[in-house]
């Protein structure tokens, strides 16, 4: 890819308002749906072009002799051959700066509220709107002063974007190192100059970045800490790391969207980027109406304050759907570069893949498996590769490159200890590392995981949460199949859990898993002979497994307390269930009857802890009651 050709510098004042002179003008030759062909146009691949008299936005996707093939982000009805096509010479880019948070965009970063104001409740075409509000003034506080030498990516000032959230204003990555000759403090719009360097470069709060190109970092690091989701089955059995990747495939109705929304609500990331890609309009509305009223369990502030939404519903133009995940990834990377932990949800990557297929088939490309283009897996891999934990360009220089070069473990430990210290001091020092975690939903046709999108996704993601229609049908939610799912981060994250939650965490998790696996084996026999004919010890395993399924794995997303479960609570639930297991086995040793054990009432008390804030008391009482009850039946 050509470098340094894009104009990725700060947005100069006023310039974005006036129409730039096109680099080249051609004319339309053929129109067939979202793909059009122009002739006489001088363009590079992925240049943004303006199509027709209405100047619809499009992107060059193929060049064939004198013909240029363009995908158009808007409906092309009524456009006729012969109309002009202008090349802007710019790649599809997003505007980055204060004002991103709480926004809701379409797939090409047009703010939907602005579109509503300009054209009403229905999305018409030919309307252009900048991604950021160019009139709003932000209170800019410089952290650099005149005479300081600064380089690309460095933080020069701070803006409180939403209450409690500090947006760090960074120099664009394309800027050359220089000395500050002027830096202003006070209220500015995102397009006003806030800083001038001695090499004549001016800096504004907003910068542009082409969406298809990952933003540069100083160093990529292996992940070290889990993304705490508050969802027991994820946190306990199949954790995803901050900076890691996860896939949630499942047939319709299995709860993909609810899971994604739960993750968006309760993950302990600093920023959430939620991309609704080719999904239902009402679902985005749900997010929009719900998030402002929900409180972040950490900060107590509305969840909306840390959220950027991208909504390109299924009936919005298919080319914009294709772009939407890149738009999301770029915004996520921008916040990562400030040293924040970002979680990006893409719902659903299958719709994105289908958009690719649709465009590809209109190009009459040779299809690969099931009509998907041959480059499907490359694109998916490139996308998920944008997740990672990094040392951003903005990180303080005092982090020596030497440290970063050391092996993963050292980096991990040093980060943990330093973070722990900071937490004790009551303030979390951020900014040394940032991360983007990508969680992609996959919607396999017919729930068949062997189809190309699921398979290509599984090759690159490290956590696999398999949704199961059978579980959903019996209202076991989240309907994650605990036998098919996996997480490759278990070992990586073990030290973190041992340090932060308790050294018994991993052993507890392993016991849960082995009991569940044992149950699966026994179920095959039960299917044939019924559970009553099993030996007592195996009947006990079945009962313990039931407790695990009902009290640990099942979680009610719609219950105000059960919707978020702290790690400590999960640990106590596990311990209580195992307490029952231990007592049960001991009682069997001493000749107790399995019937009496199964009839005990104390074990069902664990359920109450799920729905109660005072889980500690309840679970301790439950354990005590178990002790008493087992005494009696001896």
């Amino acid at each position, binding site marked *: 890819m050509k470098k340094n050709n894009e104009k990725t510098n700060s947005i100069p004042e006023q310039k974005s308002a006036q129409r730039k002179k096109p680099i080249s003008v051609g004319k339309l*030759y*053929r129109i*067939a749906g979202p793909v059009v*062909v122009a002739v006489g146009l001088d363009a590079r691949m992925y240049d943004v072009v303006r199509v027709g008299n209405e100047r619809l936005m499009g992107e060059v996707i193929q060049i064939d002799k004198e013909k240029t093939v363009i995908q158009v982000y808007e*409906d092309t*009805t*009524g456009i*006729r*051959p*012969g*109309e002009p096509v202008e090349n802007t010479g710019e790649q599809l880019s997003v505007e980055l700066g204060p004002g991103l948070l709480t926004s*809701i965009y379409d797939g090409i970063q047009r703010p*939907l509220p602005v*579109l*509503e104001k300009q054209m*009403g*409740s*229905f*999305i*018409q075409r030919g309307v252009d709107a900048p991604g950021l509000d160019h009139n709003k003034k932000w209170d800019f506080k410089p952290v650099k002063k005149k005479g300081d030498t600064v380089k690309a990516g460095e933080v020069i000032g701070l803006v409180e974007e939403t209450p409690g959230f500090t947006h760090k204003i960074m120099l664009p990555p394309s800027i050359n190192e220089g000395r500050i000759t002027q830096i202003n403090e006070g209220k500015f719009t995102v397009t006003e100059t806030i800083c001038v360097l001695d090499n004549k470069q001016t800096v504004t709060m907003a910068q542009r970045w082409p969406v298809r190109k990952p933003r540069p970092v100083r160093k990529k690091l292996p992940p070290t800490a889990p993304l705490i989701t508050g969802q027991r089955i994820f946190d306990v059995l199949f954790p995803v790391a901050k900076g890691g990747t996860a896939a949630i495939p499942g047939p319709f*109705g299995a709860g993909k*969207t609810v899971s994604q929304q739960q993750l968006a609500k309760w993950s302990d990331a600093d920023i959430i980027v939620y991309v*609704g890609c*080719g999904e*239902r*309009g*009402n679902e985005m*509305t*749900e997010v*929009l*109406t719900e998030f402002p009223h929900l409180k972040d369990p950490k900060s107590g502030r509305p969840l909306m304050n840390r959220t950027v939404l991208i*909504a390109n*519903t*299924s*009936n919005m133009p298919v080319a914009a759907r294709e772009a939407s995940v890149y738009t999301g990834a770029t915004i996520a990377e921008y916040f990562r570069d400030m040293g924040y932990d970002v979680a990006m949800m893409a719902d659903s990557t299958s719709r994105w893949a*289908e*958009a690719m297929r*649709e465009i590809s*088939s209109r190009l009459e490309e040779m*299809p690969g498996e*099931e009509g998907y283009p041959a480059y499907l897996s490359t694109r998916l891999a490139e996308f998920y590769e944008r997740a990672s934990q990094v040392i951003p360009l903005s990180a303080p220089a005092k982090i020596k490159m030497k440290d970063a070069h050391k092996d993963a473990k050292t980096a991990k430990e040093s980060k943990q200890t330093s973070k722990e210290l900071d937490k004790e001091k009551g303030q979390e020092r951020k900014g040394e590392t940032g991360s983007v975690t990508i969680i992609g939903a996959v919607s396999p*046709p*017919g*729930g068949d995981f062997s189809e190309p999108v699921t398979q290509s996704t599984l090759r690159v993601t490290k956590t696999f949460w398999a949704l199961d*229609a059978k579980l*959903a*049908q*019996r*209202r076991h939610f989240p309907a994650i199949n605990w036998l098919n799912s996996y997480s490759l981060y278990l070992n990586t994250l073990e030290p973190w859990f041992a340090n932060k939650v308790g050294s018994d965490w991993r052993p507890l998790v392993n016991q849960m898993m082995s009991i569940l696996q044992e149950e699966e084996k026994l179920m095959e026999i*039960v299917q*044939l*002979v*019924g559970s*009553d*004919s099993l030996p007592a010890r195996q009947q006990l395993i079945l009962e313990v497994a039931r407790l695990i399924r*009902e009290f640990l794995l099942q979680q009610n997303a*719609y219950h105000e307390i059960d919707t978020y479960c702290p790690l400590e609570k999960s640990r106590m639930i596990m311990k209580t269930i195992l307490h029952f297991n231990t007592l049960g086995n001991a009682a069997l040793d001493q000749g107790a009857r399995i019937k009496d054990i199964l009839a005990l009432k104390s074990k*069902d008390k664990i*359920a109450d802890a799920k*729905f109660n804030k005072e889980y500690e008391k309840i679970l301790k009482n439950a354990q005590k009651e178990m002790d008493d009850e087992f005494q009696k039946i001896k």
Partner: protein
Amino acid sequence: MKEYKTIARIAGPLVFVKNTDPTPYGDLVKITMPNGEVKNGQVLDTSDEMVIVQVFEGTSGIDRNSKIRFLGENIKLGVSKDLLGRILSGAGKPIDGGSALIPEKRLDINGAAINPYSRESPKDFIQTGISTIDAMNTLVRGQKLPIFSGSGLPHNEIALQIARQAKVVGQESNFVVVFAAMGITNEEAQYFIKDFEETGALQRSVVFLNLADDPAVERLVTPRMALTAAEYLAYEQNMHVLVILTDMTNYCESLREIGAAREEVPGRRGYPGYMYTDLSTIYERAGLIKGKKGSVTQLPILTMVGDDITHPIPDLTGYITEGQITLSRELHRKNIYPPINVLPSLSRLMNSGIGKGKTRDDHKNNSDQMYANYAEGVDLRGLVAIVGEDALSVRDKKLLKFAQEFEDKFVRQGKQENRSINKTLDIGWDLFTMFEKRELTRISPELRDRYFKGKE
């Protein structure tokens, strides 16, 4: 307006015209055949050399000498309040012998996507009077909830019963029904119209009929016509509109037919790769809009080919719609009406439409408990077939009995029986009496105390 006599090729429903002036994409086309008959079409692909026209009424009778006229606009439907009570063809022309419609305005039938920001969350409970829907798969105003059926199952009766009984509790205004038939038989269509007439519902309905012997291509236009009428009535005339689309399977078959004629690269089972996008431009035209009083609720019906829910048509539909009501051949054989199998059924918007102040505080827990018990009970039937009922534990026997009674007392109801939501939920509690109170683990302790009628 210029006329062309430059047809280069005719294949299936497509006509290829060369040497035209620049022609807009999506333009409406009139084709006059030598005998004077006129057919309509639409531009699918346009370039300097060739314009490809899709003909709605089929290409039979078109020859090289037919005259082509491009109308300079895309397909529109003339709308006015007078649409109510009328029966129109699949292409939007009156066929009930009544007077010509005087349109208040003409609207593009392709509509436009609703800005997600402008939508309002659907949350008004619609009581259909059918227990399996009201309690287990609640329909709310502005939802799109399809019926997944199979050939020979009574989906039409159910759709009619819903259209007849649907109401928002505590509100007078009933629903206006927009009915679009795609490729159904004349007999089926008569059945619908007769029912509309008998119940007086026709006065509050707009009927679009594309019958089995009407041209297949016209089927692609029919649902869009219907939805354009629905949107007009909802968002401009402040009405609550229930749109019934039947049968979406026929629609998709037509889509495949056109795709094949255009020699496109086919996707799964020969259906075009863009079928998801195409269907979404139909199904997504449901919902509520901020600041508008009306609403569009969709009830599409589709027959699953070979009762296979993984077939592309139900599959893609399920990914777009907000749930599905699934009919079961097994229940139908047991002579249970409505044969709704609640297990693979789902309403995604249920949670926003139920609970205290909307239906009843025990609704969610009650339905979760019924789901869990019924699912387990149905599973046990397989086991009983092998080991016999005697080998079951006490709890399993109860679950088995529950599954039986659930089908008999809860699922089964009369075609004219209009159950209130309270009645429906009470049946649930009646069924629970066979369990001990503590066995109802899905129900919160307070609700158990309040509603449970059985022994402790």
